[in-house]
């Protein structure tokens, strides 16, 4: 996500939390849990450590309280990014492992691809290029099977960069 795009997302999220909610019949209401998970996820993609610090804890707590498995996994992935930004790559890998196991169980291929990408970055930070390559390769295959072509291209580019000697 580009910096300007995240600023726009953030502006909407900041205004949204102050607005009234309405449980309309077609399901577009935003619970506090939705809000915290959405913000944590957006912050992870934008590499915003400050926002991760604010929103990952309530996202984790809410997801656990309500037994929301998809959100538990998204919160775990965001926590992993938070660890990675704090140079704690081994803990990041552990979080991404846990997130991935949930997404695999749910069969959510796009989310699996995103999580593999995050774990690949953590492996790279640990200097484990072989594991990083394996994750980017699997992520690319999952994105292709999902029909997520831009994400597949990015995963292939990241894989190629590693094979060119990057970590």
């Amino acid at each position, binding site marked *: 996500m580009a910096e300007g795009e995240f600023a726009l997302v953030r502006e909407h999220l900041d205004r949204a939390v102050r607005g009234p909610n309405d449980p309309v*019949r077609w*399901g577009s209401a935003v619970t506090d849990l939705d809000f915290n998970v959405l913000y944590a996820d957006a912050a992870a993609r934008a590499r915003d450590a400050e926002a991760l610090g604010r929103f990952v804890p309530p996202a984790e707590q809410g997801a656990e309280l309500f037994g929301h498995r998809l959100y538990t996994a998204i919160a775990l992935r965001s926590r992993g990014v938070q660890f990675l930004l704090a140079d704690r790559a081994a803990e990041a890998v552990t979080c991404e492992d846990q997130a991935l196991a949930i997404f695999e169980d749910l069969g959510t291929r*796009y989310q699996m691809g995103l999580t593999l990408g995050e774990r690949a970055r953590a492996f790279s930070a640990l200097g484990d290029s072989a594991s990083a390559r394996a994750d980017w390769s699997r992520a690319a295959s999952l994105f292709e099977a999902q029909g997520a072509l831009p994400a597949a291209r990015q995963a292939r580019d990241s894989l190629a960069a590693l094979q060119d000697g990057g970590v």
Partner: protein
Amino acid sequence: MALAEALGDVFELMHKGPPAIGAYQDALRAWRLAPAGEVDAIRLHRKVVQAGAETKYAVGRDGFRDLRKAMQASEASLEEMLEKLRNQPPHPEISRLLAVLSIAAWRMRTPPDWAAARGYADEAVRMAEALAAPVELSVALEALTSAAFGQGLLLESRESALRRLAVTRDPGFRDERERLDALRGAGAARMYLGEYEQAIPLLLEAEHIANRVQAVDQVFNALALLTQCWLRLDRWDEIKARRDVWEDLEKQYPQERTGPLCWPIGLRAVVETLSGESAAGASLRDRSLDIMVATFGKTDWLRNAHY
């Protein structure tokens, strides 16, 4: 009076709020000329508020402004009547009145008064239980589901929604529209907790019944909820497979009949964009925004609209 009320009921079934309210007001005028019983007035005022609350987002901002005065007058009458009726024996119409006041406490107030909504809903449920009246109990449980949701009590909200569904699944339950909405409500409550696999069959059943009874608004509601479940489960093919259904809905019916299409169109925009169809995604995104601005205005959006 009976004729005007019946006409209002037909409009209400078609999700045509403004003519429904007009017809109920005609019925109220007829009632005032020859007032037979207070229950008739309660029922008519209740239907005015109910039709207005249902229509709020379907008619857009300007349309709703015109309805608001009628609704506020009826709501005030209902609150006044309720005070007089508090010591009367339980009555199905009082239970329905309480349920409608519960909904009005959040939909008609800014900010919503969730505590009042909860209080009215609890009272409505107690009265319907005392009456052993299944349809009224279902209506009251819907109000309780919404009030608990608004209070952030998602587990309790699901419990009420599932209890309501069980009430309407009883073989002796005859109100098919109520059963349809109970399916939708249970699907929604499960969806908000991430129980997508359990929500989907309920919503598919709701969609099927809605198509059969030609409840266009409920087709829209069920399909919008299904779209969100499929999006969360990365089942983009299911969303793409319903493209024609959405286009037909939009072509065949005005927003007043369906409800605002901005939300599902926005979800479809996400899928197109993530699939690399950026032009199609941008086009859907812009249409979604246009509908949202027409419905909610350029500012003062609900939390829902930013999402």
